[in-house]
Each structure stands twice: as C-alpha cells, then as structure tokens.
C-alpha cells in the first residue's frame, strides 16, 4: 500500500429536502483514502454511508438531494467542480461501482455482452470486436464458466451470484483507481458472498485498485478492510485502522455495534448487548450528539454540542466527549 492520497473528501454535506424537513443525510464528512487501500464504511441503515458513495460518484438523485458543501478531491481534481461531461469520463473509468441489487442495476433488455462492451467502447475507444473479446476475458476472470456463450445471455437467465460477478467485471473493466462496493454481497447467500468477496479482493489486489466497502456486516470489514469509518446519523463517529477501531473502539456506538453481533469466535451462550432505542429521525436531529439518547456514557455536555471528529491516537479519530471512558470488554473469547 502506497501512501499516495487518492481520494480526499473534505467537509462533505449532502442534504435531502423532504416534506418533513431537510434530512442531513451526510453532514460534514471528511476522510482520506490512499492508493490501493481498502476502506470499510460501516453503519446501520440511514447512517449516510450510501449517500456518501453516491456523492463521490455525483449520482445523488436531485431533486430532492443536493450536495450542499464540501470538496471531493480525486487524483488532485475536485469532482464536485467538474462539468457533467467531465464527471462522466470519471465514472466507470476511474471509479467503478457495484450496487447491492444486481438485478436492478443491470439493464434487463440488453445482453450481458452488450452491457460489458459499453464502458470499453466509451472510455477506452475499443472497437466492437475488441470489446467483445475483452468482455469474454473479463467474464472468465470473475469466474463465469463458458464466458463466450454467456455474453449472449440476459440478466434474468443467470443467478444472483453470477449477476454480481458480471457487475464486478463491468466495474473493473476499465481498470479503475477506485472501486466502490455498496452492500455488494448483502443479498447473497454466505457461500456465494465468500466467493464474490474473494474475487473482489483478488482482482483489486492485482490491479492496485483502492476499494470502499460499504456494509453493515462488521465481519466482512474485519476480513477485508485496512481501515474503517463508522458512521452514525450522517457523520463519521470513529475512524482508524482496522485494529484500532475493532480492538480498541473509542466511540460508544462502535462498542454498541460490536456487542450487538453474535460471532463465531465468542462464547456461544453470550448474551447480546443491544444498543437501546432506535435510530433518530434525521430530519429532526438534536443539537448535541445524535447518539446521546442511546448512549450509556452520555453526560450533560453531550446534549449541548455535537463533538467533532478529533485525533485520539495517531490515525485513530473519534467524535465523543467521553472517549477516555469508553472501552469494550470482550467476554468469553473461545478461539
């Protein structure tokens, strides 16, 4: 992993106007991604992780969504300052994206070959025949047997796992610098999930592609990511290397997440410690810390002002007034 900065997101805010008020889906988010690095973006539904990805791709549906502030510097250029034509040259070529639902993100009326050809012809200026043979090569690379004949298949004729492989082939076809995988394996069975994640890892390692894995599955991040951002209610609450965040979490929400999931390495009879309450209404967030109502560490100060994400220990960042008191006690490790 080089230390060259690939992506620098600075104070990004993306808001949605709804009849119930303005939803601050992404609220002053900053992070840096280095070349070849794999970043895990974790959080529950509504925390803003997908909107962060869509903002990077400039695909936020507008209206009602709007990127209201910030900079997204990718390879030295601000994506938010680009014209529509310029950003189209970046999408698919320099940044590839895999979505959760492979059925809805593939065009049902076009053959797989036709869809795989498109970015190759558009971005790399290949002829139809060049693109077709490259497409077959890509399908082979992602482990689709009988690639030549599969080019003529339509999305409904192949399984969910195969569709996700096609999506990977398409996203990586122009050898992008950055791959965004938004819940790419969530809809798949565990054994298929393992296959897909291994393929993504193998190919991106080979191409030196940086990856942003967006997921609510803490295990997937533990296995594949180098660093982690934990998001809650539109903001990054904790950020750091994998070991820092997982082994010495300093934000009560991270601790809560880790204690909520049963895992195979912990004692089977362990009682889960869920985070109490529910995710707050994003259109009506409190003045202070948005996690306060569910937090065991909350003090008076938390209701008065929302803590900034500050450096705790080198690359380990946290946004909690009481971070010094926060620690995770792991009970019953069996392995």
């Amino acid at each position, binding site marked *: 992993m080089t230390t060259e900065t690939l992506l620098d997101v600075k104070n990004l805010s993306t808001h949605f106007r709804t009849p119930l008020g303005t939803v601050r889906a992404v609220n002053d988010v900053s992070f840096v991604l280095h070349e070849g690095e794999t970043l895990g973006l974790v959080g529950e539904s509504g925390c803003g992780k997908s909107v962060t990805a869509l903002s990077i791709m400039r695909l936020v549906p507008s209206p009602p969504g709007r990127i209201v502030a910030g900079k997204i510097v990718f390879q030295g250029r601000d994506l938010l300052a680009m014209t529509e034509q310029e950003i189209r040259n970046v999408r698919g070529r320099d940044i590839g994206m895999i979505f959760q639902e492979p059925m809805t993100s593939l065009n049902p009326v076009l053959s797989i070959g036709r869809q795989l050809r498109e970015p190759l012809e558009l971005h790399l200026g290949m002829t139809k025949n060049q693109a077709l043979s490259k497409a077959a090569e890509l399908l082979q690379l992602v482990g689709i047997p009988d690639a030549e004949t599969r080019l003529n298949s339509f999305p409904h004729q192949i399984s969910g796992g*195969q569709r996700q492989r096609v999506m990977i082939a398409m996203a990586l076809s122009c050898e992008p610098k950055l791959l965004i995988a938004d819940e790419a394996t969530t809809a798949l069975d565990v*054994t298929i999930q*393992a296959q897909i994640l291994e393929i993504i890892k193998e190919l991106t390692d080979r191409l030196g592609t940086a990856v942003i894995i967006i997921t609510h*599955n803490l295990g997937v991040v*533990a296995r594949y990511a180098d660093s982690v951002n934990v998001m809650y209610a539109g903001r990054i609450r904790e950020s750091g290397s994998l*070991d820092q965040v997982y082994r010495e979490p300093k934000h009560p929400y991270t601790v809560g997440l880790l204690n909520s999931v049963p*895992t195979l390495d912990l004692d*089977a009879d362990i009682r889960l410690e*869920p985070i109490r309450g529910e995710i707050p209404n994003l259109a009506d967030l409190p003045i202070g810390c948005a996690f306060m109502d569910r937090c065991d560490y909350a003090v008076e100060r938390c209701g008065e002002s929302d803590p900034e994400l500050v450096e705790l220990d080198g690359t380990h960042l946290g946004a909690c007034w009481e971070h010094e008191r926060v620690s995770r006690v792991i009970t019953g490790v069996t392995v």
Partner: protein
Amino acid sequence: MTVTTPRTDSSEVRADSKSPLLEVRDLKVHFPVKEGFIIQRKVGVIKAVDGVNLTVYPGETLGLVGESGSGKTTVGRAILRLEDPTDGQILLEGQDITEFRGSRLRDVRRQLGMVFQDPFGSLNPRMSAGNLVGEPLKIHGLTQGRADYRRRVAELLNLVGLNPMMAGRYPHEFSGGQRQRIGVARALASRPDVLVLDEPVSALDVSIQAQVINLIKDLQDQFSLAYIFIAHDLSVVRNISDRVAVMYLGKIVEVGSRDELYNTPKHPYTKALLSAVPTSDPVLERSRQRIVLEGDIPSPLNPPSGCVFRTRCPVATDECSRIVPELRSVQGTQSAACINGDWYNKAARPNEKSSTPQEV
C-alpha cells in the same frame, strides 16, 4: 385424544422432557412445475423438501440453517400446514396432524405460531397493532368479554416491549424492529407450544437485531416455548439454538447439538458454511482458513444424482454420484450424511430397512 384437549394435558406431556413435542417424519414437499396456457401439463417436479426428519423437544430451540433454496422455509411452512406435505408425517404431541382439515386444523394451529421474516409484508397495513395482536384471541375464542380482550392485548404488547398506548397505531407508524415485535406478540397470543421463526431478524439493523434476539430468548424462558429458528446467519443461530440442523437442497446434511455442530462439523457443507462466516476480530480473520465453495446451489428441478452436494463439494469422489448418503450417527447426538466421512461406514446403521445405501 382429541384436539380440543384442555391445556392441562399438554403440560403433563411437557413435564416429561424425553417425549418430543413435535416430530417431523420423512417429510416431503414437492411442487409440480406446469407448462402451457389454459391446458397445463406437468413437466417436472421441484423437490423443495425431500425426506426430512426432525424432532423438537419442549422448551428447546432447533436451529434450521441453509442457503436460499435449501427448503428450510418450506419445512417451517409445512409444519404449520401452510403447505401441504406430499408425503411424510407431522406429529404434535404424538398426534398425527398431517391429514387435519377445517376446524380440527384450526384448533391445532392454536398450539403453533409463526413469525415471518418481513415485518413490512407480514402485517396487514389496514389493521391496528391492537387488532393484529388480538385477532388470534378472537379466532380461537380465548378471551371472555371486551375488558378481558383489551387486558390481554395490552399484556401481549407489554410482553414484547411495546407501550399498550400504541395499540391504536397502524403498522406504517412503527419501525422495522417494532413491527417485528408486533409479529412476535401476534404469534404468542394463542399461547402456542411451538413457534416457527422464519428469519425473524434478518431484515433488521444489527443493533435492533440484538434487541429482538434477546426478546425471543427471554420469552422462551418465560413460557418454556419450543422454537424452530430458521435462518441463514450461522452466528445468530449459534447464539439462540440448542440443536442445529443444516439443510441443503431439500435434505438435512448434518444435525447435532449446537456445540457438536459448531465445534466439530463433519459434513463438508457445514465446514464450508462455517468458514464462510467472517468474525469481527481482525487478528483472527488474518489467520483463518477459508473454504470457498465453487458454483451455485443446483436447481432443485434437476438435482444432481447421488449426493446433492457433490457438485460443489471439495472432497467429492466418483462414488458420490452413485450413492445417496443417509444421515448416520457420528457421536453423541450428531449425525451427518457424507460417504467420505471416516465415521460413515463405522456408524451404527439407523435401522435395518435402510441399511444399504440406495444405488442410483
């Protein structure tokens, strides 16, 4: 014994922990595949469940694990008779309920409850939370008069951690986790003995998932309910189950106590499933070996000959395409169906009749 047996009888049965509460014997659920418009011809059969045996004892949780298409949901639905079995028997407290119809079926369903996966689709959007929870009380005539009904509905809502003041609200006014709580309250209303929980937490966020899992566990302790917990998440199943059965393509490939199955898995499919589940310890993850299975689960319309798992199995031999493996005892309560297991030929054969594995 008739179905209208008073509850006192069933608690006597319960007191004897050795007799099973629910037994599923050689259950088969086949769906015909039809072709043609107006005049339909049967062109094939999907063997969604193909010869499943299960036993559930009072107060215990049996976890049923498998990937999509393994038939785990169909087993659950067949137990509640929401799906008509093609063959086999379902015994509740020793009584064969497979052929029950009409009012007898309704009566026996009082003892069985089901919680569905989708908290959005499984609740009627036009019924208030109170009516949803109270409906089973009315159907089975379990309350006397209005005041009793209201008191019982409030009690049920309280039980699952909802404020009884919310009884007048409709499903869309609740969050996913709260809706699943309503689903649980509804399933509990008729005071069942067995609850089939079909992926009850997989649609929920992790922090909410843990709340619902703890709720389900607490209710089990409180009412000594037996659960059939259907899920694809092996970590969740491990946390809640006493015994676990692993299904693949309509068959049970391995069954055993939780610790046997998770600590010493014997079937190659169980091993692969367990290795595919990431833990949340990065240090452990770096050293863990992972078995990545190739390919997809085959079509149940055209299952492989011999062992159904052989097309994806890392240890499959030529033999596997010819012999249909049967579940054979490994040790203790653990059984697995793989002819390449070292225990397989040593194992005591379950009964004389099926002592020779079928040749295909």
